[in-house]
């Protein structure tokens, strides 16, 4: 293992050095960093050019200037780490640090969502292989592979962001929404659940009616503007959390396991009972204490499951913990919804979904409330996150589907079927976990490359993350900034690649890391 680590490290450093030399030469030759000054009309033009040339050491030939830049990094060993200065003369390190924070904010949510939905879609399509649903999803994922990212971004801006804001300005549900949305939802659920003709029809009718009810509910209560029923919210929370609890139990242990089901329902009851106390203290919370509450909730769920005892009490305990966290999330979502109207009216001036930037200007002057700030982050993240997600979902769902199909056709699954296990146990416990192993590699690799920022998405949505930094730096041929950008992305790629290998060997005992 140690030999593997050290060999890997040495190889990575050599590759990194060579690649950075290549990038340095390429970016230094990409254009003229003095171009904007040359065409300028400033009186002291000559002096400005002189100054910048001196600051960027343009008098030294490029192949040698690289070593000056490298020297700045190597001085990190004696405590003078520097990545040089950009064309404005500001240190690159600070710029990069700011951009990385913005980019991380942007990619965390989209990565998590892409993984969750990609796996869900992958599993459902694998289980319904060669069905109409499978073919439709396959076609859609091909379509998303073929869409340029700026296309998705611009479309989302116009037809989701602006359209939603326009709807809020004049809340009126068009007649076709009552027809098309329920039918589409009915079709999707029928495709996913499948079964014989009778069951398909049942699914279709139930899903269609349920969606129709939801649309009518939204229209009647003007839900998108004021998504709260006042004190009656507690009923809503109870219904949603209870439904989710039953679903989670069905997937994790099966509804036949009564202890598990009771655990889940008890956990929901405890959560609902704490609803009003939570509302009372909610204004004094922040992100950290909220996460702390989440951990406490998980512990309580675990305890409830444990107390129900029975033959495999840890199963119930695990279900309890998951249900507790989900119930907490439902309550938090409800709390956010209670602030929505205030946010729309007073912060966003009636147009909540932001199409540019990462935060409302001067937000701190308007409000310091945690929930308002969270909503602001949400509305700014929504569109970029969706546009980053869609493409990742397309590829993850393909991988998950292929892997799951591969696993489902393997011998040990046949053995599991032969010994009489039911479909849920086989899919969730035997197949699903093994199908996820190859996916970890791809996800880790993707995160590494995402840290380079979504150059196009950031440009369209005016986020000042890593992608935007690169774009702006390349426009004016700002070599030091470009190099700083490259160093961060390259190291991230190397590290995550390495983590992917380690994760793979940890998850799959058949794979061993060798030097």
């Amino acid at each position, binding site marked *: 293992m140690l030999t593997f680590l050290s060999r890997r490290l040495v190889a990575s450093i050599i590759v990194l050095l060579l690649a950075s030399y290549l990038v340095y030469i390429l970016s230094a030759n990409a254009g003229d960093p003095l171009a904007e000054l040359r065409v300028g009309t400033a009186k002291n033009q000559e002096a400005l050019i002189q100054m910048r040339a001196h600051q960027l050491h343009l008098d030294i030939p490029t192949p040698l200037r690289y070593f000056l830049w490298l020297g700045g990094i190597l001085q990190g060993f004696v405590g003078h780490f520097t990545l040089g200065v950009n064309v404005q003369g500001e240190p690159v390190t600070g710029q990069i640090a700011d951009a990385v924070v913005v980019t991380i904010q942007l990619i965390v949510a989209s990565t998590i969502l892409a993984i969750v939905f990609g796996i869900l879609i992958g599993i459902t399509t694998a289980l319904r292989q060669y069905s109409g649903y499978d073919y439709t999803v396959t076609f859609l994922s091909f379509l998303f592979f*073929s869409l*340029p990212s700026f296309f998705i971004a611009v479309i989302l801006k116009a037809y989701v962001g602006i359209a939603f804001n326009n709807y809020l300005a004049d809340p009126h549900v068009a007649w076709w929404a009552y027809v098309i949305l329920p039918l589409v939802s009915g079709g999707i659920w029928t495709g996913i659940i499948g079964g014989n003709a009778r069951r398909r029809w049942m699914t279709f009718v139930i899903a269609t009616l349920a969606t129709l009810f939801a649309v009518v509910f939204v229209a009647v209560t003007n839900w998108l503007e004021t998504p709260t029923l006042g004190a009656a919210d507690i009923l809503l929370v109870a219904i949603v959390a209870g439904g989710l609890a039953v679903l989670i139990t069905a997937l994790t242990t099966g509804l036949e396991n009564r202890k598990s089901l009771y655990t889940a329902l008890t956990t929901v009851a405890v959560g609902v009972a704490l609803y009003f106390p939570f509302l009372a203290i909610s204004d004094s919370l922040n992100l950290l204490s909220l996460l702390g509450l989440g951990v406490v909730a998980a512990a309580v769920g675990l305890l409830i499951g444990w107390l129900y005892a029975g033959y495999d009490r840890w199963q119930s305990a695990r279900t309890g913990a998951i249900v507790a966290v989900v119930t907490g999330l439902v309550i938090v979502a409800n709390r956010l919804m209670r602030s929505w109207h205030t946010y729309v009216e007073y912060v966003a001036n009636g147009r909540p979904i932001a199409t540019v930037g990462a935060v409302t200007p001067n937000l701190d002057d308007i409000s310091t409330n945690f929930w308002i700030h969270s909503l602001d982050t949400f509305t700014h993240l929504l569109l970029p996150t969706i546009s980053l997600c869609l493409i990742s979902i397309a590829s993850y769902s393909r991988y998950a589907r292929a892997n799951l199909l591969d696993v489902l056709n393997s011998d040990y699954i046949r053995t599991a079927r032969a010994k009489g296990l039911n*479909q849920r146990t086989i899919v969730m416990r035997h197949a699903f976990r093994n199908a996820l192993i190859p996916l970890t590699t791809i996800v880790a690799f993707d995160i590494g490359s995402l840290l380079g920022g979504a150059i196009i998405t950031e440009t369209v949505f005016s986020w000042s993350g890593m992608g935007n930094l690169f774009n702006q730096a390349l426009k004016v041929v700002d070599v030091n900034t470009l190099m700083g950008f490259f160093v961060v992305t390259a190291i991230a790629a190397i590290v995550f690649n390495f983590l992917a290998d380690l994760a793979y060997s940890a998850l799959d005992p058949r794979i061993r890391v060798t030097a």
Partner: protein
Amino acid sequence: MSNIPPIDPQSNEAATSVEVVENLEQAPSAIELKEVEGLSQGRIVLRRFLRHRGAMISSGVLIFVILLAYSAQGLHLPGIDTPGWWPYKFTDTGNVINGGVPSWKHPFGQDSLGRDMFAIVMRGCQQSLMIVAVVGIISTFIGVVVGALSGYFRGWIDTLLMRLTDVVIIIPLIVLTATLGRKYGASGALALALVLGLASWTGLARLVRGDVLGLREREFVDAARVAGASPWRIMFVHILPNAIGVIIVNSTLLMSATILVEAAISFLNFGVQLPDVSLGSVIGTYQAAFATRPWLFFWPAGFIVIIALTINFIGDGLRDAFDPRQKRQLNKAARRSAAAAREKAASAARAEKAATAQ
């Protein structure tokens, strides 16, 4: 798991349906084996490809787009200079009619200088398709040579070439191409295509290396070596034709990625520069006009999607065609005829049995 719950009828039903699918899969492959008896590998692949409906439709659409683009704006190569049938050139300015809204005279509309959008989009298609083709050829060539050399010779050549590949692969493709495009984009679309080709061969090199590493241990390579063939002959005459599936499929997928990369860097204005246009640069130029004049955006974007989608589907069809383990469900008609054939064979067997019994 000590608690095995009673099997409920639903999960039982789902289990049988999976088994049915498995049987269905095996049956056509048996039939297919019968069908391909006595055919060469190339014929089998061609036949499988022709049967892939998505790939066939896509090929038709792609050929139509190519013909449309090159006939509408004419073919301009050294020595060849044909005028297009479309009355406007992509550089012609004119009067803006009715705010440039699409009309019979200008079916794709006009931009603010009165240029005809159809002409611009067709020229953009030409350039984007040319870039895709050139990048495909160059990066396939480099990737195959690098991959074959390192896979065949192994040892220090392999180490050297693979570290070189690592050096290029660690630079994000869009960063590498944008940096190169910043310098060479102004020298014309062909120069841009050449440098893009020099940047995007890495993935293919790795795949070809992996394939060659496996193939070089096979008996037919030993046989060639014993017969006295030179390493080059073994590599290019014996090994690479066996890796042709990997090469063709992946260079197709590489081309569909290229059109998106080209569109992205041209969108950022690091690609093809005015007065010449590519599909990405058209969108980059007019993106601000999206809200007021969406046709400036939708037509070029639509053509990017069409080209990328068709190439992707063709790649998928090729993958299915080349994959010998391919277990593809036949379409309904084929399945019915397969079932009929099975039925016939079974009844023939029964008849035979009956005959022998008598």
